[in-house]
């Protein structure tokens, strides 16, 4: 039975000439899990709002076409009926929590629906129990972690017992552990309760395989909708919307289409067995031919896959998808690791400690060096001290103990205004940067403050960050990803020699992330030292040469990317998990994974031909 029927839906936001949704047609069945994918600004969130009945009631604007819910046009449903049947969860839990305590927050929707008190008490208790929030029900919501806040929001919606749950990037503000926990709950709701789920999510790797159907949107239109398996099999042109594991197998032209790490490992195992069998057969052939003719080439019979794959299996560059063509990260990473012994560090921390007022140390005994041309990623759970570390390095939180050196000169205790000329820090929330009337003014502000008149520099930043079309726009009128780039521009414009970034990929789609990766690599090539704090392990593996893992304020791992990530149980990219233990060398990036897969297949193809 179809729950939603969307026909020819077109929607314009107020005062906009371009439609946010254009002739959208789709149906959603009862109990279906629909995963909406697409680049930033493709209309995903707008479609979710339309399905929740918020357009045009809350936003205004013009709408045409039809949305039927359970056979009745959505606009004929009253506000109360809509809320009773369709629950929606947005990105930022901070902006959804109305009440002070967890228990009252869960009860808020039920109070609004006029549910009788005895029924309300039962539903609140059940929702709290289901989301395991019973122990914190009297807690002030502002004191909860991001993950707990989003769980509270989910519990509040579940208490209203809707038929449909609509989620707009619900994990974007959460660390990987909390995000996975939330996604597990959502999956259970679909599997065990039969609840219809419509979700937009940037962490494709974690939810792509959970969906019954994947819908891809571009420029306000639905351009493709299929089951995940079929989507992977016919993914030409849509690789950026697939999880890394699917992307690499698809890019390498492997016939099988694994959706998960487990499936991927199975495919790799088969390919490897085929490859080894082929080597044995080749060896046997050569033994047989020994008596009849001499070998033409000097390579030995013990040729392992990893040794020979570059010559035998490497695909033509033209065959590779755009996201793989663009970067040469694998190579640059390897190059970047060499030669630091002769360089002197740009920024160095020695025995650094930091404690907030009346609290215990949250950073302990940190020793690190940042070298020119090197990108360092800092990983760790929420509350491990990652952001505090960045703030301590740039002088915002002067160390309580230990020293910080910039180009060999001690800067501990110097004013942050002075240090920030050489050490730029991009903090987590781009909105905290934006107050000027235009993008151009916003980026030029840092120069103006320092009395530097250099329009060319502003222009260069606008171009590098693809912001030139928005130069006269008010930054507050732009999307989250665009705001993030403006904030980055405000830091880059002063041309610091050290760039510190706190969660720079938050809210960015795959394409934008890879563009940012290229930009950071370019800055590193020019001699900048970059350090980024991120929860995005795939991104860290893509750009970083060095990786640090911080836990409870202490560095528990520090070293070359492969050395740290390959030995990590948790902070390992998805492609690494696919190949771990099956191949002799560590595979960290999609590019490396495609090379290995091509090599494995190259052997097989050679044999079959």
């Amino acid at each position, binding site marked *: 039975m179809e729950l939603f029927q969307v026909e020819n839906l077109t929607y314009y936001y107020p005062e906009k000439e371009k439609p946010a949704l254009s002739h959208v047609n789709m149906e959603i069945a009862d109990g279906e899990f629909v995963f909406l994918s697409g680049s930033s600004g493709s209309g995903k969130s707008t479609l979710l709002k339309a399905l929740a009945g*918020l357009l045009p*009631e*809350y936003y205004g604007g013009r709408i045409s076409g039809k949305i039927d819910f359970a056979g009745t046009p959505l606009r004929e449903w*009253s*506000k*109360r009926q809509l*809320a*009773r049947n369709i629950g*929606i969860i*947005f990105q930022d839990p*901070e*902006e*959804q929590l*109305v*009440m*002070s*305590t967890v*228990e*009252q927050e869960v*009860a*808020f*929707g*039920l*109070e*609004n*629906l*006029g*549910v009788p*008190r005895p029924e*309300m008490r039962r539903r*609140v208790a059940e929702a709290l129990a289901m989301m395991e929030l019973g122990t914190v029900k*009297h*807690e*002030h919501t*502002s*004191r909860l972690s991001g993950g707990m806040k989003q769980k509270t929001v989910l519990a509040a*919606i579940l208490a*209203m017992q809707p038929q449909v749950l609509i989620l707009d990037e619900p994990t974007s503000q959460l660390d990987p552990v909390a995000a996975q926990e939330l996604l597990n709950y959502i999956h259970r709701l679909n599997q065990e309760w039969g609840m219809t789920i419509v979700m937009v999510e940037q962490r494709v790797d974690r939810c792509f395989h959970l969906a019954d159907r994947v819908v891809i949107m571009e420029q306000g239109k639905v351009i493709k909708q299929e089951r995940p398996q079929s989507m992977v099999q016919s993914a030409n042109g849509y690789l950026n919307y697939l999880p890394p594991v699917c992307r690499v197998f698809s890019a390498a032209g492997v016939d099988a289409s694994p959706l998960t790490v487990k499936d991927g490992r199975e495919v790799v195992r088969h390919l490897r067995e085929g490859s080894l069998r082929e080597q044995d057969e080749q060896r046997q052939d050569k033994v047989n031919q020994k008596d009849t003719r001499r070998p033409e080439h000097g390579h030995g019979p013990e040729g392992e896959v990893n040794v020979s794959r570059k010559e035998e299996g490497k695909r033509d560059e033209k065959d590779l998808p755009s996201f793989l063509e663009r970067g040469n990260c694998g190579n640059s990473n390897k190059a970047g690791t060499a030669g630091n012994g002769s360089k002197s560090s740009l920024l160095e921390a020695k025995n650094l400690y930091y404690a907030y007022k009346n609290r215990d140390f949250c950073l302990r005994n940190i020793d690190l060096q940042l070298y020119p041309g090197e990108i360092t990623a800092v990983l760790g759970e929420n509350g491990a001290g990652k952001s505090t570390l960045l*703030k301590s390095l*740039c002088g*915002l939180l002067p160390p309580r103990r230990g020293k910080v050196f910039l180009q060999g000169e001690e800067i501990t205790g110097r004013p*942050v*205004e002075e240090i*920030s*000329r050489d050490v*730029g*820090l991009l*903090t987590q*929330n781009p*909105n*905290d*940067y*934006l*107050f000027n009337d235009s993008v151009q003014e916003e980026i030029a*502000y*840092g120069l103006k*403050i*320092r009395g530097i008149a250099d329009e060319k520099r502003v222009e260069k930043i606008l171009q590098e960050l693809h912001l030139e079309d928005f130069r006269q726009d008010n930054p507050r009128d732009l999307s989250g990803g665009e705001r993030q780039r403006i904030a980055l521009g405000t*830091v880059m414009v*002063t041309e610091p020699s050290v760039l510190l970034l706190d969660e720079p990929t938050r809210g960015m789609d795959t394409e934008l992330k890879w563009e940012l990766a290229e930009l950071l690599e370019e800055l590193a090539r020019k001699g900048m030292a970059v350090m980024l704090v991120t929860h995005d392990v795939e991104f860290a593996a893509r750009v970083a040469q060095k990786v640090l893992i911080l836990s409870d304020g202490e560095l528990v791992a520090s070293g070359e990317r492969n050395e740290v990530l390959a030995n990590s149980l948790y902070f390992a990219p998805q492609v690494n998990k696919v190949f771990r233990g099956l191949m002799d060398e560590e595979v960290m990036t999609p590019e490396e994974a495609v090379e290995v897969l091509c090599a494995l297949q190259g052997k097989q193809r050679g044999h079959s031909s």
Partner: protein
Amino acid sequence: MNMLSSFLPENQLAPGRCFWSSLHPLVFLAYLALVVAVSVMSSHPLVLGILLGAVLASLASAGSFQAWKGSVKIFLWMIVILMVVNTLVNQSGATVLLTGPWSIRVTLENLAFSVVMGVRLLVIYSVFILFNQAMDQDRLLSFFARIFPRSAIMAAMATRSIPVMGERLRRSYEIQRLRGVPMQAGGRLERIKNRLPLMKVLVMSSLEDSFNMGESIQARAYGSGPRTTYRQEAPQGKDFMMAAAMSMALMVFIYIFVQGWGSMQFFPFLEVEGLASAQSIIFVLLALLLCLPALLAWGWNRWNYFKWKI
């Protein structure tokens, strides 16, 4: 920055954990309203002193005295500025203490009037801190949403936005420093100019947040029809005791007001009279009645038996 620091989440009380937040919302609001009303109607330093003492005792019993202390410094400066401006602009009063250029006369009467005005503002400010620190906002919203749905949600959102704004102000301040703005350097005018962007960030981000929160509230059917409430708000022993104390305090104040003891004549001459014994007794009675809530709260915190019984 300092002023907002007491509203940051880490400095706020957990709701439902103190005597004040366990009171019936109407009773708590009535107490605050009584203090504000008396402070506005009275200009007698002794009455205002009693009010200030009662509110500070209440803040201490709610565990919020440190929060008040942290935020009051900047407010005291504002009061001092107001007093100075009033003294310079207002030329009334017969006892001239100082004369300056442009016919400026600093009079004893005007100075006394400014001090009393400052104390009155301090009482009102302290009442606001008590409300923000100790009022259970959820109960307030649930209770008033049935009668004034729009106003109640607006008040709840405004109250909730204060800690969020405090946190945002702190972050924006750090970012301005990172962008090279000398927030601490320069003269007062330059510092105000450098801090203006903070206000812009604060206002714009708060508007965006409110819009987004409004969307979430609409999606959860707020204002879609009659509401029910999760908590049953039945008045308890302590509410009746508070109500009785407040009624008596109100009657005592009316008596003081009718007798003309509640105000003081400042102009043209400051009239300072000693207290008659009857007057002293009445003032002591008023002080006891207004401090009774703080005493109850103290007992509530100290003895579980007392807490369970009221």
